[in-house]
């Protein structure tokens, strides 16, 4: 009698489970979770044990102690008597300042570069190409040191300052510019400006509605311009120019009075913008190139002008491709601002993660704070950009 070879039943439960696709996935996930959990557990546990071994505790009390150090650039009231928490706030503001200005300038330069790269003018095109290839292949730290070196070494000392119009003074200690001192009446002008902005937003919607319904076209731009700029401008002079400008004066070693923009801020701002702009330029070029040429031809066939084709047909579609990688560039710029320490710009890393850390010896606490702050900044930028991306993305029905 011939016995038919039947498949042998699985010998043990483990291999049977392993051979089942779904169970295997669950097992792998559990294993991955355990390994990751164990890794972090070891790290934290090790840190705590070693801190205990040298008798150090984890405590945030130092934040309320006086910092005892001075900071050169501070947008809020700060002295060496202020607390470490206050010093940290100064650092946060300085980081945000350079990140916001950097993102704005990088975007402007980046879009210009992107457009230049698409230009049919050979010189413009190649200049943009050379710029991008040079800038993005050199580390950003070198850009920062280079710009700082140029400002500090090429600009004169305060005694020989470059004087612009007798009101602004360029020196290697910073750019000293007049600061506005707002008189009470000025707030009328400010209020008019806010009203103008609100009016313009409403009016634009209204004009759109009228145009959709009747085809009647309002000169929206000029009306809004008049409301936002024109009315406050006329009021400003009617009220007798209620801003007094404080002009910097040379006193002893440096200029005093007015506003000062430190070379460290300028160097960091320019370097980060120049660097990130090179990447943004390529993203913009890619985005515009990705819009099919047929779209241009279709618009032209309908008699749409070149400018309107760009603003109504090409750019809205290009933005959908540009925004997601642009978000990463904004995040990079914000995080790269931590290189500020190299030239002594007082950002978060230099204040709480630098001087405070060093003077109090609270490495764990300070580093945890710095990490958390960067995480918050990045998540904020990210969520802002995601909101914008959702607004402009193709609505699928």
């Amino acid at each position, binding site marked *: 009698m011939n016995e038919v070879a039947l498949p042998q039943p699985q010998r043990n439960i483990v291999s049977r489970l392993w051979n089942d696709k779904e169970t295997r996935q669950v097992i792998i996930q*559990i294993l991955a979770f*355990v390994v990751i*959990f*164990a890794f972090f*557990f*070891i790290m934290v*546990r*090790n840190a705590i*044990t*070693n801190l205990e*071994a*040298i*008798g*150090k505790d984890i405590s945030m009390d130092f934040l309320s102690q006086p910092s*005892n*150090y*001075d*900071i*050169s650039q501070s947008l809020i009231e700060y*002295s*060496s*008597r202020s607390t470490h928490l206050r010093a940290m706030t100064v650092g946060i503001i300085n980081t945000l300042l350079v990140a916001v200005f950097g993102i704005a300038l990088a975007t402007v330069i980046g879009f210009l570069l992107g457009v230049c790269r698409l230009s049919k003018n050979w010189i413009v095109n190649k200049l943009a190409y050379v710029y991008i290839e040079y800038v993005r292949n050199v580390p950003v730290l070198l850009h920062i040191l280079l710009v700082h*070196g140029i400002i*500090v*070494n090429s600009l004169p*000392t305060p005694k020989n300052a470059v004087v612009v119009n007798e009101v602004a003074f360029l020196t*290697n*200690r910073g750019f000293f510019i007049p600061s506005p001192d707002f008189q009470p009446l000025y707030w009328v002008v400010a209020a008019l400006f806010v009203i103008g902005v609100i009016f313009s937003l409403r009016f634009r919607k209204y004009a759109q509605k009228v145009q959709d319904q009747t085809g009647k076209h309002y000169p929206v731009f000029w009306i809004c311009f008049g409301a936002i700029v024109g009315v406050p401008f006329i009021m400003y002079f009617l009220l007798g120019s209620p801003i007094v400008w404080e002009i910097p004066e040379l*006193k*002893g*070693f*440096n200029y*005093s009075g007015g506003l000062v923009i430190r*070379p*460290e801020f300028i160097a960091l701002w320019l370097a980060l913008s120049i660097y990130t702009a090179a990447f943004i330029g390529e993203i913009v070029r890619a985005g515009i190139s990705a819009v099919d040429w047929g779209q241009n031809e279709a618009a032209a066939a309908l008699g749409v002008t070149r400018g309107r084709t760009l603003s109504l047909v090409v750019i809205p579609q290009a933005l959908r491709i540009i925004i997601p990688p642009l978000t990463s560039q904004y995040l990079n710029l914000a995080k790269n601002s931590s290189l500020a*320490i*190299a*030239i*002594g710009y*007082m950002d978060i890393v*230099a204040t709480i993660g*630098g*001087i405070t*850390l*060093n*003077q*109090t*010896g609270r*490495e764990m606490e300070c580093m945890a704070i710095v990490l958390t702050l960067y995480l918050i900044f990045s998540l904020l930028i990210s969520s802002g950009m995601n909101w914008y991306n959702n607004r402009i993305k193709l609505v699928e029905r």
Partner: protein
Amino acid sequence: MKVVKTAAIAATLSLTAALSLGAQASTLQDVQARGELNCVVTTGVAGFAAPDENGRWEGFDVDLCRAVAAAVLGDAEKVKFIPTSAKTRFTILNSGEGDILFRNTTETMSRDVDLKLTFLPVNYYDGQGFLIRKELGITSAKDLDGASICIQTGTTTELNLADFFRTTGISYEPVAVETNEEGITNYSANRCDAYTTDASALASIRAALEDPSAHIILPEIISKEPLGGAVRQGDDQWADIGKWVVNAMINAEELGVTQANVAKLASKAGNNPSINRLLGTESNMGEMVGLDNAWAVRVIAAIGNYGESFDRHIGPNTPIGLSRGLNALWKDGGILYAAPIR
């Protein structure tokens, strides 16, 4: 799931225990087993610790690293130098990466107590001063109102500076930089009117500037800066070794033991019991601290006494040109007063 988790925790616990046990062996044994001393120094202050043109570390602080290596390992060359910024120095020492620190470091209460360090005897009494261009015509630090001042961040100097300007009620712009080199670059480029740090380091910076005679160090000393070595808190034997190596060098100068005559003096016990105890021909001082009795002989043979090291690197005949001042022996009018080896 629960079982797996518990197993993971148990494994973690035992691993952690093993890790922390490893870190607690005595530093002396660690260093001797490794055959090399990890010495935390500065990234470069001429005269105190800086690599020379051949890449060999030289300086007053470097000598102390070599002295400890000579005492502990029997060879002054078995030192690995760890250059650190002012900011990273204590972390590197406390994490165990460095065994001992000689890095123009000011002894302060918070560093001693809160940063968990044990300071070795002061090897240089210093104070904070200002380096400034002669052409500015300033003669006193009180005339610095509104000046931009370069400081190295992470040092006691930035705290002293804030205190000084607050108490004198004048304003300034601090330009905080990460390393000494960057401070010098900024000062040379006229980004700051003055550079401030310990007066000894200022002398070394001034000597390295293009035209040293165009710069002066203001007469005011605005702080006390007792500079000394340091070790991690909690290993008393290791702290004792560091302490007595420094003391041995100072005592050697006091007793007239030099690099030239140490071999002869150590060959047999002489008439002076103090010298005998220092050089191990009498009593067994070295064994008490976990070394052998010829420890100090090796130190002095390799490095010389305190005065010889001082003269070689920072003394009046060097480009740094510091006089002994407070750092003369107590019997010569200074405050250098080492506990006796007895």
